[in-house]
């Protein structure tokens, strides 16, 4: 198992009650696995099915494997400008 730290922002941080969560997943876990696990957390049921996940500031696709040493973050719809 690997431990993944995931940063949460704005509405997603409110939904899960924290700006950062830890998730344990088997090694080789993909973005889709992580999002599935996040949606099981209290409040996570209100996350969209395919939220915008970034790894080291770059978008990750659903089937992509996650690097446990990378910085992961789940981004609500952007509203800058």
């Amino acid at each position: 198992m690997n431990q993944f730290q995931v940063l949460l922002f704005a509405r997603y941080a409110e939904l899960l009650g924290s700006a950062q969560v830890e998730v344990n997943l088997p090694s080789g876990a993909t973005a889709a696995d992580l999002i599935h696990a996040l949606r099981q957390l209290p409040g996570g049921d209100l996350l969209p099915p395919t939220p915008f996940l970034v790894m080291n500031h770059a978008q990750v696709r659903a089937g992509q494997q996650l690097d446990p040493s990378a910085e992961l973050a789940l981004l609500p719809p952007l509203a800058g400008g």
Partner: protein
Amino acid sequence: MIRVRFLSQVPLELTPLIDSVTAPDRGAVATFAGLVRNHHAGREVTALAYSAYEPMAEQVCQEIVRETEASWPVRIALQHRLGDVPIGEAAVLVVASSAHRAAAFDAVRMVIDAVKSRVPIWKRERYADGSEAWVDPTAPEGVTPVRENR
């Protein structure tokens, strides 16, 4: 390399930003300022706060500036405000300087479009009735109501 700070917790000022990219051989200066409005999606807005995934936002702003300067003969300056922003103050400023005005106009548009679509920044609005919501351009009503922590 000097690290440019694109995000600011203090009020943005257009004049020093213009001065940072003008030069005697670049006579055309186009700018865009996005000011905080007092209404959104039909509701009266009384207060507003921006937050960001700051390291990524800085990086993406840097990428946008570099891409734009590589695509047009321009110099670009860009700043985005964070934290509480009063109505009427600037949330974002973009400046493009060039030898000719067409490139300056095109570059400013490209930058502001890219900021809106790519920089991880979020906006929380408070309304005249005391309720709050997250601005969400993908939502049918443009906002998602705030859900208190459980």
